[in-house]
């Protein structure tokens, strides 16, 4: 099961939600009355499986693949098998750190004409953090940056324009990773046994049957290793996608012209209604009537 959390609308520098960390701390706190957990502050990939990280694709930073040793200072109150020195740390060898894949999606506005240069600066910034270009269009760019510098990378991008939206997602792949790790160890054990069977095979038929099984197991081992490498890569490098839009040109509104409607003309003057018949007969009609 994959845990997933979205953090919307946080301000610059606001920490993204670290899914899974609190759960682990709570579980530990149930067993320890008072404890101080010392973990590496960076986003941790606790490679507790003993898998050799040196061959990982993508150059996973050392601090991300180093095996986490949880140092817990415990103070138990009375009884038990004796007082433990508060300064004497105990070793908790298998405290798993969450494996989180961080993804950020940002939308920024820059002055018109500076979209391309802004994208270039984003790429340069990612490289300076130890990251690399993952994809690019005319108005967007995707970079992968080391997860330990995830926040710094976002803060750096935020300086380049006016942030219109930001979305940060943390995907917890701890369970899948550890399942794969266990499965891989089992497969390797199986492979060793099959290899020993193959060495001891007495007939060709038996050898072929063991060989077929050995190939099948080897294929599963390759698949599991590939998936683990993928997860480590994604955990080690966070994907940041930035959409760079030109700021809309603000057009000054035209000067408002106040149109004053002409006042309604007064009604026509009341006509003089003189009781004089010949006034009504005045005009062209009568004058031009020669009949």
């Amino acid at each position, binding site marked *: 099961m994959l845990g997933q959390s979205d953090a919307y609308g946080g301000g610059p520098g606001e920490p993204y939600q670290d899914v899974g960390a609190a759960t682990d701390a709570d579980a530990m706190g149930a067993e320890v009355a008072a404890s101080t957990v010392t973990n590496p502050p960076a986003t941790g990939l606790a490679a507790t499986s003993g898998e050799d990280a040196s061959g990982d694709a993508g150059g996973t930073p050392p601090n991300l693949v180093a095996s986490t040793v949880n140092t817990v200072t415990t103070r138990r109150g009375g009884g038990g098998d004796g007082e433990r020195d508060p300064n004497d740390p105990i070793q908790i060898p298998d405290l798993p750190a969450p494996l989180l894949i961080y993804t950020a999606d940002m939308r920024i506005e820059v002055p018109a004409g500076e979209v391309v240069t802004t994208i270039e600066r984003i790429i340069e910034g990612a490289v300076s953090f130890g990251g690399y270009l993952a994809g690019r269009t005319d108005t967007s760019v995707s970079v992968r940056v080391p997860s330990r510098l995830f926040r710094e990378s976002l803060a750096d991008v935020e300086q380049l324009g006016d942030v219109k939206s930001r979305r940060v997602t943390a995907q917890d792949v701890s369970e899948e990773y550890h399942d794969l790790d266990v499965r891989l160890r089992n497969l390797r054990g199986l492979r060793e046994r099959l290899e020993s069977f193959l060495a001891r095979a007495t007939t060709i038929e038996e050898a072929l049957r063991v060989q077929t099984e050995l190939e099948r197991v080897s294929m599963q081992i390759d698949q599991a290793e590939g998936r683990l490498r993928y997860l480590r890569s994604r955990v080690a490098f966070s994907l940041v996608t930035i959409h760079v839009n030109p700021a809309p040109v603000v057009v000054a509104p035209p000067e408002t012209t106040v149109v004053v409607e002409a006042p309604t003309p007064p009604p026509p003057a009341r*006509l003089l209604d*003189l009781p*004089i018949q010949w*006034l009504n007969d*005045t005009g*062209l009609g009568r*004058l031009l*009537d*020669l009949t």
Partner: protein
Amino acid sequence: MKPTMNNVKKNSKSHEGRAMNHFAQAVLRLVLVLAAFGCAHPAHFATPPGFVSIEDDAYDFRATNADGVVLGVRAMDNDPEGDLAFWAGAIDRRLRQRYEAVEVLEVEAATGTSGIQIRYQTDHGGRLHRYWATIFVHGDRVYLVEAGGDAEFFDPQVADVEEAVLSVDLG
């Protein structure tokens, strides 16, 4: 019964009274005839060249040319009694309902009587027409001298029309 002196005197006085009565009636008739034919003749104006006079009951005098330009004058009682401004205003108000006033002029007739001439134009039967109304008030009469016609034919006659209008004899 034979006539007596008294009766004769009475009869004689009766004959004298009847004779006087006939004389007074004759004088009165004479005065009326003179007034009718001498002092109060109908208004008229000088007929412009190319115009012919028309006798009718509608106007005191009316004349027209072959193109239908018509002049006419008629006199009405100054009742209710009003001055030139009153009658000019009353006529103008009525005419402006149908015509567009173009010009208002103060004029003086050849007889020295002041008047007001208002010149209008209007669409009449789909053609532009002129119509001039010139008002005089003289004595107890209001005189209205009118001139009008199709603008195409009226305009070339303007000088003659003006002269004819101002030549009006108010009687």
